[in-house]
């Protein structure tokens, strides 16, 4: 199998403090496979994703090569890159609640995106029809009604599935999902993960899947990258990593997976807030 995405010596640093956030990472994503990135909070998972999309904030700089089907994304013009986003590389964010403009109904974002990518080759009705079908396929009933709702009127799981539906319509080559299940309760988590598995089956697209939840990772991923402090400390096929973790950090992660109950995670998060403010 060939590689659809090759990341070579990716390095990201903060201009203000000169801190290196990602240090010379290289990894590949094979066609039609799913690569999971795991690691503790702050290990640079999200930054890696955003670097691939070239969407890091203005204070961050990146170097290295990102080859998408052999084409170097880092040297593309902003305009060409923009066409790739959404159509070729699609991102699904962690928090559906904040991923849509709170003062517009969901439909506005969907239409704008679809109009942007399919303007010339599709008729409007056709897009809407496709969108409706996609939404139904991710178990969203009444798609029209949902499109006329504001984000705050929908649940996190629904919003997550709307993002997945949008990805289905856009038919990207790579889907990058940044902790798509973390903000959800257990039931919706299960549903959303199901949708991801369906998505892969149906479209056969490649996927980068970030998660804290090793259970989910084991279910969905073919390969795993373990990151710590901006470095990749271990990589390999999922089963191998779970059965025979080599790096001691991975061992630690795998061994604590069971001990890490949901409640405890929440508690940890609460305390980091106190420490920061």
């Amino acid at each position: 199998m060939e590689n659809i995405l090759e990341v070579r010596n990716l390095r990201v640093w903060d201009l203000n403090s000169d801190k290196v956030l990602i240090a010379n990472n290289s990894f590949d994503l094979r066609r039609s496979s799913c690569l999971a990135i795991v690691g503790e909070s702050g290990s640079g998972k999200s930054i890696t994703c955003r670097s691939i999309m070239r969407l890091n904030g203005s204070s961050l700089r990146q170097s290295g090569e990102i080859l998408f089907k052999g084409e170097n994304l880092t040297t593309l013009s902003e305009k060409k890159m923009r066409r790739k986003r959404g159509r070729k590389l699609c991102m699904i964010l962690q928090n559906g609640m904040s991923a849509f403009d709170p003062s517009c109904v969901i439909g506005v974002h969907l239409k704008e995106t679809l109009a942007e990518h399919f303007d010339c080759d599709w008729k409007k009705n056709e897009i809407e029809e496709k969108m409706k079908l996609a939404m139904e396929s991710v178990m969203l009933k009444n798609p029209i009604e949902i499109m006329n709702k504001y984000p705050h009127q929908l649940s996190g799981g629904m919003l997550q599935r709307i993002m997945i539906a949008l990805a289905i319509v856009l038919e990207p080559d790579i889907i990058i999902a940044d902790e798509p299940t973390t903000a959800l309760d257990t039931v919706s988590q299960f549903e959303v993960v199901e949708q991801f598995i369906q998505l892969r089956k149906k479209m056969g697209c490649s996927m980068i899947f970030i998660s804290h939840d090793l259970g989910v990772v084991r279910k969905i991923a073919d390969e795993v990258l373990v990151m710590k402090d901006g470095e990749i400390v271990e990589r390999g096929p999922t089963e191998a990593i779970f059965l025979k973790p080599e790096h001691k950090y991975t061992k630690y992660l795998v061994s604590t997976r069971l001990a890490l109950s949901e409640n405890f995670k929440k508690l940890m998060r609460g305390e980091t807030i106190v420490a920061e403010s």
Partner: protein
Amino acid sequence: MRIFKNLSKDKLATISVTVIVVTIIVGLFAPFFAPHDPNQVNMSLRYASSSWEYLLGNDHLGRCILSRIIYGIRPSVLWVLVALFISVLIGAVLGFLSGYFRGKVDAFIMRVCDIMLSFPGYVMTLAIVGILGVGLGNILIAFILVKWAWFARVIRTSVMQYSELEYVKFSKASGISDLKIIYKHLVPVTFSDIAVISSSSIGSMILQISGFSFLGLGIQAPNAEWGMMLNEAREVMFTRPELMLAPGLAIVIVVSAFNFLSDALQVALDPKLLNSKKRPQQKSPTTTVKIQKKEVAH
């Protein structure tokens, strides 16, 4: 003390603190620092320009301007700080009461705050001065009456937010007395929010008080006050514009120092603000509420 460390790294903040501390000390010990009696009239020295004896020159009655500026620190800065302290204190007590105990107490206090805040502060101050009569004391009373509601509001939000935290809930559940929880857990964390809001209103308060004195509603002659000195200078503005300089600059310097300090404090207490790129996980109550309602009148 992370705060002080952060602050001392910031050069502007260090300068501001120095300016403020010096101003306060000079004001407290005005008789010691002032070269002359601020109210001593000397007609032979009317409008004299600066000399070695009278560094900043003399005003329309031949009084030493430097001494008047120094004595002016008391009403213009020190008394403002006192008024601010009292209204923050009232606000803090009520804010803690309603934010911590919630329920009926909270509803009642917040309704009162709503009513207080539905008057424009400046008009309210004018009204109170109108009723009680002119004078610095009355203006300060008016300020306290007008401002506490605003502080109570913000402090309540802050207290409410921190009461939600696990360890506070835990302490509550394990039967530790409320007073102890407030004192041990809530006061330390809300203190930073209180410091930020109170420091951010000093500047505008100083400007407002000097404005009232400028209108002749504040301190009465012959006492020295910066706004009052500007008012006196205004009468001879066209012939002696230089008289407007010293008191005006004094106000600008002190107010800027306080404003800089307040900004620096905000950053020092909330380093997230420095690199705003990184989205704060939780907006601090002060920043959000302040955006909604910041009133500065001159």
